[in-house]
């Protein structure tokens, strides 16, 4: 009974803390500007099922795809086992699903074991790719101590959880064989049966191992759940809404700013009365509040895999720009603003901005807008739209573009071409044959 109450307290605390942190993330995402992504729901659902649930964009890199698939399927399916653990924990039962499921239970437990082993393999190879093989994609200026530790913490925790799960099963299986009270004969253990010879023979020791692994596994899961909001690993949740709210327009189409349309129409036609535009504020983005909520959700969804950066022509050729850094900076700045709100209230200014305090001018001007990053992202994150918003701010609010870009603007404005050619010469090509 004491253990059941203890379990209830731990579970309730874990869930309460998690929802508190999730609410903060939702609040931070809502710091962004409004953007309507409620259209074409069936198309959106199809994209979510294909890209997030079906992992379609992962397949471009087959090795990572297969390993990630192990971990992903393992994660999704082993969660069925967690359901049983929670019920057992709350009601003091043991393997509550065994009786009602009968033969199916054996199949399930066996498949969990196989999946847990595949997860272990996947995670260990992932760890080696990061820490031994040093795959280039996982390095870069933005991959400092915290991002690298974050990745390793996730992998180590997964190894521990899966090991605890398998050890627990092994001890349980041995206790079943010994006929110990409560340890009903249930489950099939294709993997953990190999661990049985490694375990002690004493019943007390086995129960101690089984129970501590059980507690370690479930407390580990609760702890991991609460680690998610602080980690890049939050992608396991946000991948789904983020792909649902994907940009459905052609990648080449940049938004037409309604606030600008009003002014331009008024300039071209003096009799024009501007329509009220809700967005207000400044042109483009200087800080988090100027980006859309989808830009911000993108930032929380990013799991820093670096596929974007590895295909970025600017980054490949040694420029400072890294689309992954754009996303990580956006998240870091958003977290900082969230903490400011918690500490000092909503209107606190800390003198910092996303542009310049985090992302430099050199980075935003190195982008070729080629969309390689948006195409490469397995969860449809769009670093390009953030870059463009920052450029818009630099150009329209500050007139701070590189000199040659300003010259190009001048040419377009005066000659109708980005070069200094006279508009009257536009048809000369016919004669030049």
């Amino acid at each position, binding site marked *: 009974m004491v253990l059941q109450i203890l379990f209830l307290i731990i579970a309730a605390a874990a869930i309460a803390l998690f929802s508190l942190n999730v609410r903060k993330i939702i609040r931070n995402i809502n710091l962004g500007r409004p953007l309507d992504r409620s259209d074409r729901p069936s198309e959106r659902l199809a994209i979510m099922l294909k890209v997030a649930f079906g992992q379609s964009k992962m397949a*471009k890199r087959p090795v990572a795809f297969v390993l990630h698939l192990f971990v992903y399927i393992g994660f999704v399916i082993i969660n069925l086992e967690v359901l049983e653990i929670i019920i057992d924990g709350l009601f003091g039962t043991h393997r509550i699903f065994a009786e009602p499921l009968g033969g199916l239970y054996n199949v399930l437990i066996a498949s969990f074991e196989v999946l847990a082993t595949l997860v272990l393999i996947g995670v260990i190879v992932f760890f080696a790719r990061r820490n031994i093989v040093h795959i280039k994609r996982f390095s870069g200026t933005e991959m400092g101590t915290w991002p690298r530790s974050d990745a390793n913490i996730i992998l180590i925790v997964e190894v521990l959880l899966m090991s605890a799960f398998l050890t627990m099963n092994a001890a349980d299986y041995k206790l079943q064989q010994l006929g110990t009270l409560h340890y009903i004969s249930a489950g099939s253990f294709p993997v953990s049966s190999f661990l049985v010879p490694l375990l002690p023979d004493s019943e007390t020791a086995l129960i101690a191992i089984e129970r501590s692994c059980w507690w370690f596994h479930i407390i580990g899961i609760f702890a991991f759940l609460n680690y998610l909001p602080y980690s890049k690993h939050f992608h396991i949740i946000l991948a789904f809404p983020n792909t649902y709210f994907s940009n459905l*327009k*052609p*990648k*080449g*189409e940049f938004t037409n*700013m309604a606030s*600008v*349309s009003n*002014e*331009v129409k008024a*300039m*071209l036609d003096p009799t024009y009365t501007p329509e009220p535009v809700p967005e207000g504020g400044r*042109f*483009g983005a200087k800080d988090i509040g100027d980006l859309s909520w989808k830009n911000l959700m993108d930032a929380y969804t990013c799991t820093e895999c670096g596929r974007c950066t590895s*295909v970025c*022509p*600017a980054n*490949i*050729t*040694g*420029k*400072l*720009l890294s689309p992954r850094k754009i996303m990580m900076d956006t998240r870091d700045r958003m977290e900082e603003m969230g903490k400011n709100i918690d500490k000092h209230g909503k209107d606190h200014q800390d003198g910092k901005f996303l542009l310049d305090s985090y992302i430099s001018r050199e980075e935003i*001007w*190195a982008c*070729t*807008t*080629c*969309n*390689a990053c*948006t*195409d490469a992202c397995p969860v449809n994150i769009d670093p390009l739209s953030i870059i*463009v918003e920052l*450029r*818009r701010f*630099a*150009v*329209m609010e500050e007139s701070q*573009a590189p000199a*040659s*870009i300003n010259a*190009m*603007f001048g040419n*377009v*404005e005066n000659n*109708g*071409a*980005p*070069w200094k*050619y006279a*508009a*009257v010469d*536009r*048809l*000369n*090509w*016919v004669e*030049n*044959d």
Partner: protein
Amino acid sequence: MDKLTVPTMAELAAKGESPEILFWVGCAGSFDERAQKITRDICKILQHVGIKFAVLGTEESCTGDPAKRAGNEFLFQMQAMSNIQVLDGYNIKKIVTGCPHCFNTLRNEYPGLGGNYEVIHHSQLIQQLIDESKLKAEGGESFKGKKITFHDPCYLGRANNVYEAPRKALEILDADLVEMKRCKSNGLCCGAGGAQMFKEPEKGKKDINIERIDEALALNPNIVASSCPFCMTMLSDGVKNYNKEQEVKVLDIAEITARANGL
């Protein structure tokens, strides 16, 4: 081939006529010497198949694409709205462009500002003409056995998912088509997009066009094909960088088509 005649919209309108299609030449196609050649070849193809076309001539102006990519939405919309006035003034319905950037802007960004046209890129026009058997590869230069690799312009490929149209123009040549590893949706930018064409690159260890041409040259091609005037500049500069202008030609799909048909 008859003498090239390029009517302007103003001339047609004065005669009370209208074209089947407006050829939107673009700034590079109008002023850049290398691109002017491509422009004339697109006209030759149109004339060859007997499509009644016209250009805006001096009434054409920048679509605003480079201004928009560089963040100058004001300038973009000024350009767009005055271009829409001109296009609507002539009651234009269908446009073919010689540039993927003009294509993308006219096709995707003008509708939101009230400019609704059917917009195609010249590679799509060529594909369509081939599909309709109006255009073949005969009567001109033979490309048989020539090794050709196609560089996907970002604003045609990833931006608008047009990958097959330009390849169609190459497939009928009986040439040896080879793909770079980074092709189609994995294609590497030439380095000119996003208004990079009009500025010096930021400091780095290599220029993007060199990175790209290295990949193309590794295939030992006779021809690097593309279908964008900016890619043309970047790739040609890349080839020049290695003094390989004699061995490796950088050609637009339209030029190849015109040559294959002796236009």
